Every structure is written in C-alpha cells, then in structure tokens.
C-alpha cells in the first residue's frame, strides 16, 4: 500500500456562474521513503494540490488518503514547509521548534523534548543561532528553522511548497544540497513543489509535471535514476541528467502553448525612424517635413493569445 494516495480528485473554487476549476483527474501515489517533486507554472494549482494532502483543502470529487485513511483535516503526521517560513517572530529559533515538539510529544519528559529540539537544530546546522530571533536571521537560515521545526514532529511525510523560491541562487543551491543530505540520512517521504527544472532533477526520485491545462492535470512521471549523493557540478556532465533535463523542459514548454485561445490581429509598423536626440545635429529636422523614413510600411498578421 502506498503511503499517500490521491484518486480521481478534482477541485474548483467559486460559486456557480463564477467558478473556476483548478484541478481535474488527479491520480497520485507516493511510496514510503520516496522523494517526489511536482513541477508546474505559477498559478497552475500546485499549492492546491499539496493542500489536498495537507488537509487544508478538501477535494470536490475523489479522495486523498494517507496509509489508506481518508484525509479530512491537517495533522502532525504531515509536516508543511511554506515559502515564507511562517515562524513566530517573538520566539527564538529554539522556542519556535519547541512549540511544535511540545505539542506533538506531550508524553515525553522535559529533557527528552529538549534533546529532540537540540538534535534538530544541529541537523540544520544552526546550533550557534539557537537563541536568536527570526528577524536576526537571513532568509536561508529562517527556512532552515522551518525545515527543522517540521522534521522535529517526526511527520510521515514532509510537504514542501516552493520552499526555496524566495532565496537567492547561491543560498538555494546550498539548501538543496542540505535538504537532500538530510533526506538521505532519515528517508522521510518528501513531496516537494517547485518551478525550477534543475532543482527538480537534482533532488527528486521522481518528477511529476503539473500541466497547465484548464483545469490542470498531472503529466507522465519522470524517474530520475541518478545515483546519490548528487554533486551539482558533476551532474552537469552526466548524459542522463542532460537527457532528463531536456525532456522535462520540453514537456513543460509544449504543454503551455496548447490550451490558449488564439486570434490574429492586423498590425501596422509605421514607417518612422527615431530622431537623434543625443547629438546636436543643427536644424536637420526642420529642413524636412515629418520624420525620417526608411520608405516601407510593414503590415503583418500577429497571433494574439488571450
């Protein structure tokens, strides 16, 4: 039995008449210990999809299940990491993580809980900053706290909703490597959402494109059979990586054009040339009538996508 299973789920928002369908025919099953990445355009319904699993959104039709049980509400067995960190600003790193640990492991002793918090702070390499407030940390460090807090609940599955999108390229690369390493050590099931094809192939066992049809559907999964740990420099020279990357990017780009309503429009490119404004060229423009011309008027039909 799969750990997470979504069957024929669909979801739309709004009332009759002003309703937009977001997801249709979603079928997904994720095995225990698997690292799955879902990739799609912004606004295509990726977050709605992950919220079906977290329990923040209920499907209109179909079911989402964890270990065979229907998901009806959020719970500590599914840990969520958001793009905007969502830390409590008045609590230190330690207190933010302790908040989750104290809630989930009520039957543990105080010492057990403290040790558990310290272990997870160490895991994300923030032991030196345990007493700091979120505002004293960089974006990358804040996101590490968020990851540590979520992992400290010992969730069955880690749901990451564009966890690194707000970070700069260097920090993002560093965190990708760190999260991949943590995953390699404890093998928690991960469902990760992104819009970056390189990130997807670097971290995932399986990449599933969410195609931007209206409503969106899941495309064919791509298995990434590149050995771990993956080195981000060496992987660029790997023929398997090149092939997967080209395949993934073309799948996503091809899917984009298909669903558009097109109309063509006749456009005129007027026959005028710019005047020299940087160099004083006397009264050149006064001695001729109208603008400089190249003596051809172009008209063309252009496809306009609505």
């Amino acid at each position: 039995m799969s750990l997470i299973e979504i069957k024929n789920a669909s979801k739309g928002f709004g009332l009759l008449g002003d309703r937009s369908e977001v997801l249709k025919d979603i079928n997904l099953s994720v095995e225990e210990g698997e690292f799955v990445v879902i990739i799609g355009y912004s606004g295509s319904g990726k977050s709605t999809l992950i919220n079906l699993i977290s329990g923040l959104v209920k499907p209109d039709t179909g079911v989402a299940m964890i270990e065979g049980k229907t998901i009806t509400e959020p719970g500590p067995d599914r840990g969520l990491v958001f793009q905007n960190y969502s830390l409590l600003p008045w609590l230190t790193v330690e207190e933010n993580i302790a908040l989750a640990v104290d809630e989930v492991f009520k039957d543990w002793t105080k010492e057990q809980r403290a040790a558990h918090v310290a272990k997870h702070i160490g895991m994300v390499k923030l032991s030196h900053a345990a007493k700091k407030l979120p505002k004293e940390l960089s974006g990358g460090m804040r996101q590490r706290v968020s990851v540590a807090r979520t992992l400290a609940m010992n969730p069955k599955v880690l749901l990451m909703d564009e966890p690194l999108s707000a970070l700069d390229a260097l920090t993002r690369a560093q965190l990708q490597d760190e999260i991949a390493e943590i995953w390699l050590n404890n093998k928690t099931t991960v469902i990760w959402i992104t819009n970056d094809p390189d990130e997807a192939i670097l971290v995932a066992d399986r990449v599933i494109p969410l195609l931007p049809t209206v409503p969106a559907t899941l495309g064919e999964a791509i298995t990434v059979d590149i050995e771990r740990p993956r080195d981000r420099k060496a992987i660029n020279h790997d023929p398997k990586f090149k092939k997967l990357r080209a395949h993934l990017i073309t799948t996503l780009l091809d899917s984009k054009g298909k669903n558009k309503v097109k109309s063509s429009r006749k456009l005129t490119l007027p026959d005028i040339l710019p005047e020299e404004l940087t160099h004083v060229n006397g009264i050149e423009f006064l001695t001729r009538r109208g603008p400089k011309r190249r003596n051809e008027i172009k008209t063309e039909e252009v496809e306009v996508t609505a």
Partner: protein
Amino acid sequence: MSVLNPKMLELDRLWKIYDTPKGPATIVKNFNLKLKEGEFATLIGHSGCGKSTVLMMVAGLSEVSQGNMILAGKEAVGPGPDRGIVFQSPCLLPWMTAFDNVMLGVNQVYFTANKMERRQMAEYYLSIVGLGDAMHKFPSELSQGMRQRVGIARAFALQPKMLLLDEPFGMLDSLTRYELQEVLLELWRRNSITTLMVTHDVDEAIFLSDRVVMMTDGPEAEVGDILKIPFERPRNRKEIMEDPRYYELREHLITFLNDRSHIRPSREPEFVPSPDMAAEMAAHAFSFPAAAA
C-alpha cells in the same frame, strides 16, 4: 537594407576605477570588445564581478574612468535614447498604463511623426510581446512577467542603435523566464538591434546570443574567455537542446564559471587564449599590460 556596420560598438581599453578612502579601487580592468551591427553578445560572470558596471558604462549611466567607447562611429557620452535599456526590474511608472509607459519614450524620439504613427508604434510592439489585450492596464494589474514584457517593448519601440539588457529575466521564475526569452527572440528576429546582455544564466546566454564574453571574478575584472555560439537563427529551444554542440558549449561555460573564472589572462604567463578569444585579441591588436611591461 544598408550595409551592416562592422564596428557598431567599440570598447577600447575600458577601465572603471573608484576613489575610496583606502586609495583607488579598480573594478573593471582593460576591457576590450567589438560588436558588429546586429550582433547579440552576452557578458557572463559571477555576481559582483563587474559585468553590470561595464553595461552601465556603455549605457552612459556610469562614467568611464579610462578608455574609449565608440557607438556607430561617434564617441558616446552620457545616456540617450540611442541605447535602449531593460533593467532587472521593469521600472514602469505606476500611474501610467502599459501603453502610456511605452508612449512616453515614443513621443520623445518620434516627435516629428504624427500622432497616429506614434500610437501605431506602441501598439505594434506591445502586441508582439503578447500584450495585445492588456496594453491599457496599469502595472499593478500585471504579473511580474507581463511587466517585464512592457519593459522590453518600451526599449524596442525606440528603435535604438543598441539594446542593453541588465539581467532582464533575473527576477522571474525559471518557466516564465523561458517564455520571455522566446518573446525577446521574436522581437529580435524582426529587428536585429545590436545587443549587449548581462546574465549569470548559462542556458540563457547560449540560447540568445551569438557570442558569450566570460568575465573573471572581480575586483579588477577583465575578459577571461570568449565563446562563439554557432546555432542558426531563428532558434528553436527544442532543437538546440537536442544538439550535441549545446552540451559542449554549456560545459565550456560551466567549467569557466566553476573552475577558471579566477584565472586572469593579464597575470598568468602561461595563459593560452581559446580560438574565439584569440580572434578578438587580434581584432584589437592589444597585448595585456603585464605582458607589454
């Protein structure tokens, strides 16, 4: 069609030196580059290496400390509408619609044309970038990707002699970035304005440009290597990604950025220029100051 100018832009021994309390700091050192009319060149390097400084000097927004900058046969001083710029953020005026933002520059440079022609100009370029139905919206009603489309249309509508792109897609997510690269190529296919672009995205550099100029790490950044991109135009991303040469070029650039960007031609006695770099050096007939001394 007139004959293409073989020397649209000449950057000859360009230096950028800032005075600091600790003495002069050299940011860009002895930068040489020649662009043909209708050529698309890209500057690539790590962040902070000085590639934007070079671009801002060409734009006239940053003073040249030493060296010459010749645009279409004339010394270029200060900014002007003969050089269109697209910044990383679109820099639109928020109280004007997309159309009015484009018209702002159009009214300036085509002041001798009539109103209808000027309007057609803005409409034409906004439609080609895919804003045919959204040109009368305000920037706040547009997505980040659409705002950047307006920025690109605004630059092209002035028909500048040169187009300067400063990481134009840096703020966009990877999939939107691919779309906008296609938009840029589509415009460029109609009007091949000589272009100098700054980026740190290897794939973007290969897909868009004719020549990639790699810069060494700053400070004292200089040209570290030059690579010609041989793909035919119009380009198709799918075909390029299936071309074995694409991966050779990509590896060349990635290797430079990862392992070789600290090697300075002027300081390494055993520096061997690549064929493309040697061609550029011959065109300038320059030797590095260290070698000359």
